[in-house]
């Protein structure tokens, strides 16, 4: 009796197991096929459900805290390196001879740059997510002061007399001038769009500040990105040079004689239909060179080659003898070495027409690029020893500093900074995100159009059907895991699909990510791209009076005349917290005549202030224009009854929206319904 009962139970369980196995397996296959938009992704639950957790025990278990060195500085005697560890919120003091980290100094959130005083006694570290600069006494290795800045401090420069600190406010697009005597911000200039790099000319009279994003202009107009020139003597803006057809001008360096300034840049092809990658039809990379003389020319030279692209140039340094420039290409893990005399010679012998042609010539780099040096993952900041003999490279996704001999042009060593030894799935995803190896001839990577995992502010002609139709404003990737579907037309139900086969067919035009890489990339995109804090408009969650009034407008159910607003025409209906999207498709009468008929995926609105231009084709330069110029028919919310004050309040509120994590709102796990 007992045995038969046991047998019955076993049989029952076996049958149940088989039922679960077959029906469950079928269900799992359907589910995975839907999520991945493929038919053969391995049925591995862990690859999705383990690595896409955004918080909690499992998240902590499968993820590690990395250092992510970003920028660095070398002491004059070469005995110390000061490395900004971006994800560790610290400045690492490194002995390059012993290849050892001596000290870790906690600074603000997401530190960006470090600069040393001439006497070598202090370091200033810009904290991009804290809106301040940490002042560090290097002898005691302690933060002795904190200087308030504008929003998103990035590049730093000291005035020639050391009395003022120029801070590039990358988010608010300003240059803060801080009086180091008082620690107070003396003035704040308006700069180009999303500035980062700052460098003082060798004579100490001119400060160059480079911008990353192009100035906002209607689609079709020439892309222009501002180089802001500060007269250091009188602390006034002397010039605002629009550099044509270039953007992402990350950093700038002057030759020691001061005859040239060299700026890293991307020359995008967003105005050209994206019909092929061959022949540089998507992106090219190079240097903008500005002659430092009366009526000095602006020359653009590519660093690419006809069948090889050197994506995402980030930093540039020039040796003290002025002979060589080193440029880090974070997209291809490479340092380009440029012979500056060859550049001078080329420029001096070329007519303006020839120079203009060179800016689009992939072969010209062979005249001045003398070496490509491979590095670890994602080389960012560069620093030369004061004698110029050693080049230090911050390998951001390697947690390592590589050391290059500038004479032999060989890597002579590396310094491990002590980050986790294992590469987690999400970290691998980040490496893939930042690397162009998965694009035909390395022409671009995810980061190229999504710098800082955000968006590049450009509108592209993706030529998805006929050329010249369906313009697309690049969308931010910040915290998008919970906001499917993707693409403006919502065609991709998951990040898997977004980055899968279609990605390689219409964009990268080379072999698609293998499933292991796709899993990693997806894990990173879903879990590893947080929003920056909204320090500009909502630093502490307390809304201003105007924002509160705007919130009421956002949530209102009746218009100014007391009429009930139809539910589908209320802001709050489609833009539901915490991401301010209901994840549904909508028609708000913003289709252009050049658009094919479609609905739009309701975009999420957190940190929306940081994503101009607006609407699917970027036609609205500001939030106001969404309604004042392009929403006049009351189809994108009831708006025409509003006074200007009310619209301003609404815009103020929209600008205050920030990531739910800053309000301790726990969001749902990654999901894609099936």
């Amino acid at each position, binding site marked *: 009796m007992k045995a038969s009962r046991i047998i019955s139970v076993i049989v029952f369980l076996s049958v149940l197991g088989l039922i679960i196995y077959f029906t469950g397996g079928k269900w799992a296959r359907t589910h995975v096929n839907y999520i991945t938009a493929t038919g053969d992704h391995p049925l591995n639950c862990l690859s999705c459900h383990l690595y896409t957790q955004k918080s909690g025990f499992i998240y902590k278990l499968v993820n590690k805290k990395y250092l992510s060195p970003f920028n660095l500085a070398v002491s004059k005697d070469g005995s110390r390196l000061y490395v900004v560890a971006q994800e560790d919120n610290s400045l690492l003091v490194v002995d390059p001879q012993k290849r050892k980290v001596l000290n870790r100094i906690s600074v603000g959130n997401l530190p960006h740059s470090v600069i040393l005083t001439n006497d070598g006694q202090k370091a200033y570290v810009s904290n991009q997510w804290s809106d301040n600069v940490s002042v560090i006494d290097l002898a005691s290795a302690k933060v002795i002061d904190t200087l308030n800045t504008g929003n998103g401090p990035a590049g730093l420069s000291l005035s020639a007399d050391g009395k003022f600190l120029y801070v590039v406010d990358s988010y608010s697009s300003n240059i803060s001038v801080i009086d180091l005597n008082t620690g107070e911000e003396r003035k704040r200039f308006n700069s180009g769009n999303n500035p980062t790099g700052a460098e003082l000319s060798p004579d100490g009279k001119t400060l160059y500040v480079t911008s990353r994003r192009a100035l906002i202009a209607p689609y079709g107009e020439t892309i222009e990105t501002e180089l802001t020139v500060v007269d250091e003597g009188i602390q006034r803006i002397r010039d605002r040079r629009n550099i044509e057809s270039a953007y992402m001008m990350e950093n700038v360096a002057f030759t020691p004689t001061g005859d040239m300034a060299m700026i890293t840049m991307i020359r995008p*092809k967003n105005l050209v239909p994206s*019909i092929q990658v061959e022949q540089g039809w998507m992106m090219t990379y190079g240097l903008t060179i500005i002659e430092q003389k009366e009526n000095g020319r602006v020359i653009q030279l590519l660093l690419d*080659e006809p069948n090889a692209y050197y994506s995402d140039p980030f930093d540039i340094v020039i040796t003290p003898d002025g002979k060589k420039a080193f440029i880090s290409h974070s997209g291809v893990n490479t340092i380009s070495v440029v012979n500056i005399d060859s550049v001078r010679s080329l420029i001096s012998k070329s007519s303006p027409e020839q120079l203009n042609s060179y800016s*689009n010539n992939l*072969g010209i780099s062979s005249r001045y690029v003398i070496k490509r040096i491979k590095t670890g993952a994602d080389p960012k900041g560069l620093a030369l020893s004061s004698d110029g003999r050693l080049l230090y490279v911050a390998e951001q996704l390697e947690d390592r500093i590589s050391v290059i001999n500038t004479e032999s042009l060989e890597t002579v060593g590396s310094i491990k900074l002590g980050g986790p030894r294992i590469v987690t799935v999400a970290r691998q995803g980040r490496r893939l995100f930042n690397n162009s190896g998965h694009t035909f001839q390395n022409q671009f990577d995810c980061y190229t159009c999504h710098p800082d995992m955000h968006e590049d502010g450009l509108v592209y002609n993706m030529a998805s059907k*006929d050329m010249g139709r369906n313009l697309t404003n690049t969308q931010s990737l910040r915290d998008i895991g919970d906001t499917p579907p993707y693409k403006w*037309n919502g*065609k991709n139900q998951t990040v898997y699909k977004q980055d899968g086969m279609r990605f390689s067919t219409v964009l990268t035009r*080379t*072999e698609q990510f293998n499933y292991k890489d796709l899993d990693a990339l997806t894990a990173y995109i879903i879990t590893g791209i947080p929003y920056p804090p909204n320090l500009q408009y909502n630093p502490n969650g307390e809304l201003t009076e105007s924002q509160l009034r705007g919130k009421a407008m956002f949530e209102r159910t009746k218009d100014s005349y007391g009429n009930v607003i139809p539910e589908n025409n209320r802001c709050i209906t489609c833009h539901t917290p915490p991401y301010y999207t209901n994840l549904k498709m909508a028609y708000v009468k913003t289709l252009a005549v050049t658009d094919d008929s479609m609905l739009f995926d309701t975009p999420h609105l957190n940190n929306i202030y940081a994503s101009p231009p607006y609407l699917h084709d970027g036609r609205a330069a500001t939030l106001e224009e969404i309604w004042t110029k392009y929403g006049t028919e009351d189809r994108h919310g009831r708006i025409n009854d509003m006074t200007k004050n009310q619209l301003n309040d609404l815009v103020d509120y929209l600008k205050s929206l920030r990531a739910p994590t800053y309000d301790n709102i726990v969001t749902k796990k990654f999901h894609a319904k099936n």
Partner: protein
Amino acid sequence: MKKHRTTIVSSFIMAIGFTCAFFSSCREKNKEGMIIFTRSAVKSNSTNFDKSDSWRYIPQAQILKLDPEKPEASEKVLTTNFYSAHSPEISYDGKYLLFAAQQKQNDPWQIWEMDLNDLKSRQVTSSKENCTDPAYLPLGRIVFSKYSADDTLKAGHSLYICNTDGSNMKRISFNPFSYLASNVLSDGRILTIGRQVFPEQGVPVYMVLRPDGTKSELFYKGVEGGSLFSPGLETNNGKLVFIESDKSNFGEGNLISINYNRPLHSRVNLSSEIKGDFHSVFPQKSGRLLVSYRKSESDRYALYEFDPEKKVLGKAIYSNNDYDVLEVVITGKHERPKKLPSEVDMGVKTGLLLCQDINILDMRPSATFSKSSKIKIVGIDSTLGSVDVAEDGSFYLKVRADKPFQIQTVDKDGHILRSPCGWIWLRPNERRGCVGCHEDPELVPANRVPLSVKKSPVIIPMHINKVVEKKVSLE
């Protein structure tokens, strides 16, 4: 004591094990694989591209295998059942050998695949016309050249792809060019020697195109008066090596290297200091090359090693006074090229062509030339239409797919300004761009919206008013 003995025995066994492992690994490391080569008793110097008796069809050729460690002793003919066989190619997993062969003297040449394990061969193609120069593509596909004479090609070899079992054969080149000696680059594209055959013979150049037949473009243009003979093969340091003749010794080969990154302007003659001729080359993993070389015309081509760094010939690996060693490959696994996605949609009848500025010529500014205001689209047998270019020099065409055409620039009075460009074809649903007209191939487009794309494309041939296309869904 017992414990001690056990320890000694264990240590001894482990030492033997490690030693064996060490030597076996060393041996493995040194081994490049078996050498597979072609030899022929008959000398052939024909370089016709438009005839079926091209220099690629070598009479009475044999494919052999030999062990590089003991070359003379290990020689084995693999194609004993064939009248002639050549163009060996090793699969990426190292298990199969692809080749072209004639079973009997007057049979058409077909593509065959041999299992290197049991040396059994399987016929891949069954064509009435000659097929030759096969190369492996990823995804179990191959590319090869097939002779044909039709309206499009007149007479010559087109490129085809098919599965390794011969199924799903598709033509991928559609212009009056003959394509031979193809190879697949690591970027996934097919590198092939192309030569115009209509209306007149052109010079052979390396062309590159995607396996779906899209984005065909010039890769390398040989020296003036020279000719290309062998497939261009990639080395492991970013170069391509091949054999090219020049004016001084037309029909005989120099060993040439170019950079993949900048193929048009990086030519180095590796054999400039060596007297004699080269016939073929194959890069080894070590970086050294295997070459077929002869000192003089009276000698036979023999197999040598070549040091590309020092530019010197090494020892002769194999020679036979009765045969020329013509081609060589090495067995073993090797890196698979990228699997390129395809934009071709056979449900679509046309392709789209955008030219950014017809007045961009070479590297010189357009101001020095008469500007074109119109283009003429010329087909094989007739003019397909004339189209006004936009104010910015751009034009935008919707062209019937898989049909060759040339574009000729004319002024406002209809006078021809410049000679027509090379033959172009577009695959179904292909979208293709060119920067200018006869422009420097190293030029990229300027970042501006071409005015022509603000309107619908002009349908070519122009007598067709409307093309009813399959609806292509939005990406």
